[in-house]
C-alpha cells in the first residue's frame, strides 16, 4: 500500500506505520485527549462554520468562497421527509479530484450539518441521515480540483426534526 498520496498530514500515518517505534510513540499519543489526537492528525474541526446561522455564511466560513451550481452533483433527498428527525440524504458526483463534500439545511438553526473529507482513493459518494427543523433547501457542496460545486433540493418537512 502506497503511503505518499493520501492528501492528509502524515503525522498519524507515520506513527501507525513505524512498526518498530509504534509502542513508544503510541504511548505518547494516547496520553493526549482523543480530540487532541485527531486535531494533530487532521485539519481542525470547523467549529466556526458549524456555528454560523445561514448557509451562505457557513459555506464562506468553511471554504472562504461561494459555490456554483453543477448538474454533475447528484443530490438524492426525499420530496417529503417522513420525519424531520431522520431524513436520508445522499450525494454522488462524476466530478474528479473531489476533496470534500458538505451538507447544509438552509433553515436549520445552524445550516451546516456535516462535512466529509475525501482523500484520494475514496469515492465521492456519501449517504447520511440528517435532522431538518422545517421545510427548506438541502444544499450539498462538492469541493473538486480546488473549485466548489453545489446542488440544491427542497425537502418538505411536516414533522420537524427538532424533537429528535
Amino acid at each position, binding site marked *: 500500500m502506497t503511503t505518499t498520496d493520501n492528501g492528509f498530514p502524515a503525522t498519524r500515518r507515520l506513527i501507525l506505520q513505524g512498526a518498530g517505534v509504534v509502542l513508544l510513540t503510541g504511548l505518547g499519543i494516547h496520553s493526549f485527549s482523543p480530540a487532541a489526537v485527531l486535531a494533530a492528525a487532521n485539519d481542525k474541526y470547523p467549529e466556526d462554520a458549524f456555528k454560523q446561522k445561514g448557509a451562505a455564511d457557513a459555506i464562506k466560513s468553511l471554504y472562504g468562497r461561494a459555490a456554483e451550481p453543477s448538474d454533475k452533483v447528484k443530490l438524492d433527498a*426525499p*420530496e*417529503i*421527509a*417522513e*420525519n424531520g*428527525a*431522520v*431524513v*436520508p440524504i*445522499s450525494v454522488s458526483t462524476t466530478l474528479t479530484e473531489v476533496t470534500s463534500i458538505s451538507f447544509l439545511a438552509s433553515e436549520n438553526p445552524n445550516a451546516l450539518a456535516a462535512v466529509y473529507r475525501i482523500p484520494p482513493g475514496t469515492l465521492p459518494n456519501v*449517504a447520511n*441521515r440528517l435532522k431538518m427543523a422545517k421545510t427548506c433547501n438541502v444544499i450539498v457542496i462538492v469541493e473538486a480540483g480546488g473549485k466548489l460545486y453545489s446542488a440544491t433540493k427542497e425537502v418538505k418537512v*411536516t*414533522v420537524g426534526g427538532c*424533537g*429528535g
Partner: protein
Amino acid sequence: MKAPLAIHLASAALALAATAFAAMPSAVAADTPDPVADAKAFRNYFVTKFPNVPLDDFANGPYSLNEDMRRQWEEKEQFPPYEFSLEMGKEMFAKPFKNGKSYGDCFPNQGIGIRQNYPYFDPGEGKVITLELALNRCRGANGEPPLSYVEDEMAALTAYMAFTSRGKPFDIKIPDDPRALEAYQNGKRYFYTRRGQLNFSCATCHVQNPGERMRAEILAPALGILNAMPIYRSEWGGMGTISRRMITCNSQIRGVPLEPQADEYRDLEYYLSYVSNGLPIAGPGARP
C-alpha cells in the same frame, strides 16, 4: 395544543345529537361472528382498494402505499435504527434469570420463530394471551419483576422474537370455544367503535383512510398492521411495543388510554392478528 373549535364543539355536541343518531337505521342486523368470512372480507377490502400492492407488502404499513416514503424506508433498512434494540433483545433473551432459567424455557421451541402464533387463546384462563403478556408471566414464574409494557426492554425482547420469526405467516387460531369467539368479537367491536373526543375508531384511520395523510403521518392499512411490531418510530426516537402503539393511538384521538394489556387491548390484538393471518411477520419495523 388547543382543539380546533369546530371539532371541540362537534364532539361536545354528540350528547345533543342523540336523536339524530338514534334515528339512524342500523345497517346490519345482529348475527353470530364468522371469523373466516370476516378475514376474507377484510383482506378483500384492502386488495381491492390497493390493487397494485402485493398482499405480503401490507405488512410494511404506510410504505406499501407511498413511493417517496418507501425509498426513505429502504434507505434506513440498509442499516436500520432498531439494530441496537434488536441486539439488546437478543442479549436479554439469552441471559439467564437468577434461578438459572431463561426466557426460552417458557416458550415452545425455546422461543425462536414463534412470534406468528401470538396472541393465542388460552382455554385454561379463558382469555387471550399476547406475547408481551407471556413474557412478563415468564418473568413472574421465574421470580423476576415485570417489565414495563411501554418501555425499551419489552420492545427489545419482542423485537428479537419477531426477528427470529421474520417471514413466517401469522397463524392465529380461534379454537372451538365460545369464549374464544367472544374475545375475537370483542376485539372486533373495539376496532370499529368510535371513541375519544375526535370520535374516531381504529377503522376511521386504518380502514377508511390508509395511505392518506393525517396531519403529517401517512396512515397504515389495518391489514398487516401488527406484522412489523415492535416498531422503531423516528417520532419516538426509539422502539415501541404493541401496547405503546395502542395507547398512543387512543391518546391521539383524545381518548384516555386503557391500562396496558387490558382485556380490550388483548382482544383487539387477537382480532387484528387473526384477520392478517397469512401475511408474514416483518418485525421489528421502522416507521416515521
